[in-house]
């Protein structure tokens, strides 16, 4: 599945600008970005709900740009599920099979199998409003997968679920994707979700892709300040601070978990950068403790430390303490696309 020079504008507003993308068969591909970054528009163009202003959508070698949604071998799982409220679960799952004129007996069999694959056989005769959010989500998935699409599009499918259920569904989605062997294109604004599930992530910003790569790649070597700050917490260092630390005024990033805090009198090991800073804020978040630091030259850093010990039994660091914040040279990522 690929997109070639895709453009979409609504009046004067450019939603998608000159987008190129290649997604190999069977990949779990995420489109990550803030709302309004164009990721959902791209998804809707692939599905056929929106027409591209310019460019092509190519699905397994054939150009489907001009085809109507019902003529494309692509199915969608909608954010609010879009189940038909007047139909039972079984009828919902059969809807697409019926549109394809598949005989009744086979239709019922295929639908039952699909409902079974999401483990909701016992609810087949209920109507959608009797189901919980997570159950509706699974049915929406079954309804799309029963048609064996070449590509499954998922538009923030877990957005409406609470955290615990969302994590369960992430595992479930990944399992279903592996078993079905279908390409998944997953739209989300949740970077953790994207990292957890995806083979590759495209980070969207203002209608363009800022970076495409495996989760490790986009996290460890962000190509722009936007990518660095959108994925996880970042410490972007540029200008005078960068000059004094790294000898260059370009932009660099160091992740908070790689910053080591030690006594201000301790020595820097070889291969380390370091700066003396004052702790201005401490926040306990359960697994980690987060420290906000400020150096004399005004450089602000965020550092996190894994709480391996019970609070108090560890080295005690409090607001106002002066510390040496150090990090290894290889942990510093240079941001290439910085103007």
């Amino acid at each position, binding site marked *: 599945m690929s997109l070639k020079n895709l453009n979409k504008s609504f009046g004067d507003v450019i939603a998608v600008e000159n987008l190129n993308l290649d997604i190999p068969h069977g990949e779990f591909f995420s489109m990550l970005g803030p709302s309004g970054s164009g990721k959902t528009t791209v998804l809707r163009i692939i*599905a*056929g*709900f929106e027409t591209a202003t310019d460019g092509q959508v190519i699905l397994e070698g054939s150009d489907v740009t001009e085809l*109507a*949604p*019902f003529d494309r071998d*692509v*199915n*969608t799982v*909608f*954010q*609010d599920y*879009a*189940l*038909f*409220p*007047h139909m039972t679960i079984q009828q919902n799952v059969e*809807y*697409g099979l*019926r*549109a*394809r004129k598949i005989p009744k007996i086979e239709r019922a069999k295929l639908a039952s199998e699909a409902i079974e694959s999401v483990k909701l056989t016992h609810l087949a005769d209920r109507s959608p409003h009797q189901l919980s959010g997570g159950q509706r989500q699974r049915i929406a998935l079954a*309804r*799309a997968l029963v*048609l064996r699409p070449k590509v499954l599009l998922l538009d923030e499918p877990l957005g409406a679920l609470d955290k615990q259920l969302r994590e369960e569904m992430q595992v479930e989605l990944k399992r279903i994707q592996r078993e079905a062997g279908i390409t998944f294109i997953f739209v989300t604004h949740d970077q953790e979700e994207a990292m957890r599930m995806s083979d590759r992530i495209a980070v969207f910003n203002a209608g363009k892709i800022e970076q495409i790569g495996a989760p490790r790649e986009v996290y460890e070597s962000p190509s722009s300040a936007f990518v660095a700050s959108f994925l996880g917490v970042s410490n972007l260092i540029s200008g005078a601070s960068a000059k004094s630390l790294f000898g260059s005024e370009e932009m660099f990033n160091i992740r908070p978990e790689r910053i080591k805090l030690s006594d201000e009198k301790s020595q820097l090991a070889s291969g380390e950068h370091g700066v003396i800073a004052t702790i201005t804020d401490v926040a306990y978040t359960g697994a980690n403790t987060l420290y906000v630091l400020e150096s004399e030259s005004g450089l602000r850093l965020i550092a996190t430390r894994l709480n391996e010990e019970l609070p108090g039994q560890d080295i005690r660091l409090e607001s106002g303490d002066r510390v040496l914040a150090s990090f290894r040279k290889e942990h510093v990522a240079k941001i290439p696309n910085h103007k």
Partner: protein
Amino acid sequence: MSAIQKAPQRPVSTYLHKRPNVRLIALLALPMTWLIGVYIISLALLLVTALWFIDPFTSKVIPGFTLDNFINIFTVPAYFSTAVRTLAIALAVTLVCILFAIPLGIFMAKIARPWVRNLLAVAITLPLWAGYLVKLLAMRLTFTEQGLFNWLMEPFGITGPGFGVPVTVLTLAYLWFPYMALPVFTAIRQLPHNLFDASADLGAKGWPTVFRMVLPLITPAIIAGSVFTFSLSLGDYLAAKFVGGSTQMIGSIIASNINLNPPVAAAFSMVPIAFVVMYLVIARRTGSLERM
């Protein structure tokens, strides 16, 4: 320590506050007077009158008890065919209204820009502001022999249907269309846009989407609208009189008997009521009323 002062006295409010039944009576006094005093009693009188008969020589109404007036509806061929014709006309009007209202509703609710939608909403309700006779006259002028329809269609060699049942159906559909179009539009507007996307996404084209998704979901609105289009058509007789040619409807029989033979007119008045009740019972059977 401050002493508790007695609150200012409000005797009327206090009295009503303690007696919910009195409040309820005060609330319902006017509507119940109207409902029972005017509506129910007049209907009961109508039913009673239908059981009376007139003296064939003096033409005076004689109170009594006879079912002849009702039996006549079934046994006099002209009466029976008129009842059936009226039923068919009312059903046809309802069908025409549904056929027009659904595509229009889909366009207004899901496709039109806001200003077009508002314009159409005003256009649909505008006929309600014009008088009934004005609209009848407009239809009469359109379909009369030298009227607009014939003039427009002349180059194609088509002549209009002339005054008769088809033009009566069209006229009644024109009169009652707002009552169907508005609920249908509102119902379609409440359908999430995603359902249309989902239907197309699952492979259903336009027609299957309308039949399997839109139609079942807006059935309550169609029933609500059809109660108006159906019952108003059943009771109408002026349309038949002005654009129906020789078409007779139940209303025509009632109108012509109102002075001559009130018991017959009263018995005939029961026919549309019976049809509407039957209609609602059937609608209930299909389960559509529960989702209203």
